[in-house]
């Protein structure tokens, strides 16, 4: 940020990073931008740890039998930790907490979120949840799978179950308060001129996500509380020997955890809307359809939890109803994919790193979404349930889609957040390694699953070994890709070229303040119009960035 580029007209003005200094100014900050950066660092660190556990699992699976360096119980802990860390510490909080916190108020035209102190509290709840999870590890670990199914979770001897469940409970409240903050911010803090249909689609996506966070997460809270009480006091509501019902836990758990997966994907879809539109310099196709499909997904997500329980013994009628609604929840997602494709068509596409991640998303999400359909089909699911087919499906949507979108978003807003440009050359290499590695890892798992390899197994039949070896090789390639990405991003923080206010030619409000933004977001009032009308955006050679033509007529609204 102190490189002396001759094209940098801007003097080293105050920005949110330099406004105040010292560790306490960060620990007690109320600035949404700083909170977003803290979330980003925390979430990426957790991703690294969760990824390590994944590599442990994949390395074990190179050989079908027992190995000396990890036994079956330790293996169970490894995949449990991988899942719990990734789901609760990374994917659910990542986009709303890291990118959402940073971008939402600026994109909206506000000075901060509605409740800045609650925002900081949300972050510290996340930290508390993370500490409780680490404590759980040290207290004896837990091997229940991230889904904590009863009766195993209430009877297993690993002593870390209650601490980690408490940790997830706390993380749930972090999520609830972030969602509450975003809903109120979007409703109440829109400046004059920013009507609902002038909001960029990322805000619609974050709004739909926030609704789910507020309504679904409390049910997880009570489920976890009941699990703790059952484990600690043996009350017996999930224990068949005491007149309880273990499937009741599954109903409670999935009532939250299915909407949770839409908490994971919806913000990612919002990011993709932004990336695709900006990097193809084209008005998003079907704005209102994309906006409403986010809300539709949020509503439908509450109605399909039973599709995780087709083989649990629930009635045929419930199975049929859940299967039917599961098919219909695919429709709004498909609407988005078609709209993005139509946006790309005849666009002036620039294959920046962010755009590459966006295109990767389109491919990987299509596969991930389509493979959800055989899982939602009752007779096929009998065979595919609890196999690697499920594992491959959810990695395609959670990692190949949500995480890829997050990484794409990090690249897209990196210049804005830190005021530096990263190396596009290494960016493309990193993206390619991740994309190729990902597909090699997980496409083979579809084959494994459909041929009968069960999930969460320490040992397997020798006929599956070739697939497992290929999958593990892919995992290492992917890991390399993430290391490369981390390396060039970190490098850019110290040695990157100074970033202009608008490096990509975006039209939404965050591109109208400096990179990095000033402490209070805007030094002059931004112009609010159609966030996808790029006709007024032109290249400024002196600044080496884009600018919005100040003499242009006000842009027409989205249709």
């Amino acid at each position, binding site marked *: 940020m102190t490189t002396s580029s001759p094209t940098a007209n801007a003097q080293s003005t105050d920005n949110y990073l330099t406004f105040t200094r010292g560790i306490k100014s960060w620990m007690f900050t109320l600035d949404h931008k700083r909170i977003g950066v803290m979330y980003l660092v925390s979430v990426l660190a957790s991703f690294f740890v969760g990824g390590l556990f994944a590599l442990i699992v994949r390395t074990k699976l190179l050989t079908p039998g027992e190995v000396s360096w990890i036994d079956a119980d330790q293996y169970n802990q490894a995949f449990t930790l991988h899942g719990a860390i990734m789901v609760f510490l990374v994917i659910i909080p990542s986009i709303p907490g890291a990118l959402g916190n940073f971008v939402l108020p600026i994109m909206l035209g506000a000075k901060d979120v509605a409740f800045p102190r609650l925002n900081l509290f949300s972050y510290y709840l996340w930290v508390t949840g993370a500490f409780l999870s680490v404590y759980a590890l040290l207290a004896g670990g837990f091997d229940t799978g991230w889904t904590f199914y009863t009766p195993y979770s209430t009877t297993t001897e690993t002593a870390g179950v209650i601490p980690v469940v408490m940790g997830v409970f706390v993380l749930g409240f972090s999520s609830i308060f972030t969602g509450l903050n975003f809903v109120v911010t979007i409703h*109440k*803090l829109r400046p*004059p001129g920013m009507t609902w249909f002038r909001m960029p689609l990322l805000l619609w996506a974050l709004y739909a996500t926030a609704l789910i966070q507020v309504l*679904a997460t409390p049910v997880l809270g009570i489920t976890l509380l009941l699990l703790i009480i059952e484990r600690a006091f043996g009350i017996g509501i999930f224990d068949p020997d005491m007149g309880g019902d273990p499937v009741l836990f599954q109903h409670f758990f999935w009532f939250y955890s299915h909407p949770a997966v839409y908490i994971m994907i919806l913000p990612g879809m919002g990011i993709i809307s932004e990336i695709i539109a900006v990097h193809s310099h084209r008005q998003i196709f079907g704005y209102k359809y994309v906006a409403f499909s986010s809300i539709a997904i949020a509503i439908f997500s509450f109605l399909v939890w039973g599709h995780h329980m087709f083989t649990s013994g629930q009635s045929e009628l419930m199975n049929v109803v859940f299967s039917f609604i599961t098919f219909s929840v695919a429709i709004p997602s498909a609407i988005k994919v078609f709209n993005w494709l139509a946006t790309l068509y005849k666009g002036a596409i620039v294959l920046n790193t962010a755009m590459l991640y966006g295109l990767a998303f389109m491919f990987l999400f299509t596969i991930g979404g389509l493979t959800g359909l055989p899982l939602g089909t009752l007779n096929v699911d009998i065979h595919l349930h609890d196999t690697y087919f499920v594992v491959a499906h959810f990695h395609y949507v959670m990692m190949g889609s949500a995480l890829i979108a997050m990484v794409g978003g990090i690249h897209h807003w990196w210049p804005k957040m830190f005021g530096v440009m990263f190396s596009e050359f290494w960016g493309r290499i990193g993206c390619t390694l991740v994309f190729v590695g990902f597909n090699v890892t997980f496409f083979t798992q579809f084959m494994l699953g459909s041929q009968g390899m069960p999930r969460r197994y320490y040992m397997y039949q020798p006929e599956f070994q070739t697939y497992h070896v290929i999958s593990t090789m892919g995992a290492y390639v992917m890991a390399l890709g993430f290391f490369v990405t981390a390396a060039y991003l970190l490098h850019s923080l110290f040695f990157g070229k100074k970033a202009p206010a608008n490096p990509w030619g975006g039209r939404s409000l965050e591109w109208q303040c400096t990179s990095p933004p000033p402490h209070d977001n805007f030094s002059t009032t931004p112009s609010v119009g159609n966030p996808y009308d790029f006709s007024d955006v032109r290249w400024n050679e002196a600044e080496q960035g884009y600018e*919005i033509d100040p003499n242009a007529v006000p842009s027409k609204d989205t249709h």
Partner: protein
Amino acid sequence: MSAAHTSTDPTTAHAEHDHSHDPHGEHAKYPFLAHHFDSPAQQFDSGKFGMWLFLATEVLFFGGLFVAYAVLRMLHPEVFAYASHYLDTILGGINTLVLIASSFTMAMAVRFAQTNKRIPLIICLLLTLAGAMGFMVIKYFEYTHKIHENLIMGPGFYRPVDAQEATIAMTDPGEPAPVLKLDSSLGAPAVTPAAASQNIIGIPLPAMDRTAVVSPLAGPSGVVDLAGTPPAERSQYAEEALREVPTADTPHLLDPKLPVNTHQFFAIYYCMTGLHGIHVIVGIGVISWLVWGAFKGRYNSNYYTPVDLVGLYWHVVDLVWIFLFPLFYLIH
């Protein structure tokens, strides 16, 4: 840059707004106005909306327990009919009236805050606080009485209160009393060491027999819907469980009419009333903070937001109890 307005746009009422200063003097005029809000009205609206959203999460949080209640009651209706007699309806009723009254005083407190009446505000807040504490005191007596009788959640429910009860229960030849068949691995020591010395050797505690009410009509949990079973097929104990009413003084383990799985009632009872009690305690804390703020003169007709929002919270806490009371205390 000027704000871009379309001529037909009704929302662009303001002129250019420089964010880094205070163009209308709002922030200087209202010291409670936070920097990121433009007007006190916007701040109040946002706070209120946020509180309603939080209350929605509370409803969903308790909602899970209400669903668990519904499932358990559907599975074991005879348990709920029987066990509710162990709850003191009078005390529960007093608690209900106390909470409703405290909601009223809370609403009055909001009104007094809005109309700048500081002393009545403090009085009403203190009355609300008194109601909340009174509720917890009554709750304390209810809970301690039950714990004393071993009417608790978990397998401890089946632990005899004393050696004499254990002796009677296990050595009475005429009454097999199936509900006392316990698996000792459930961790409840059957007798005190003193009793053991009285030559009550090894209460055998065989495995808990949940098929005690044996019938081909038993559902997946092994329990029969007693009321729905034809009389000829009911066990002798079922008949009596449906007819006779236990009293709070009857040691529950000695009652041959005790339905299997009665512990489930107390499990959900303690979970729900306990969680509610925790919310009352939090309410006590928050209302105390309001009393302190009112004492310092922080609330007036311009700024009564905290009183209003805490009032909303307190009304929801009251509402939850209004649902709990009939569901547990008024089953018969």
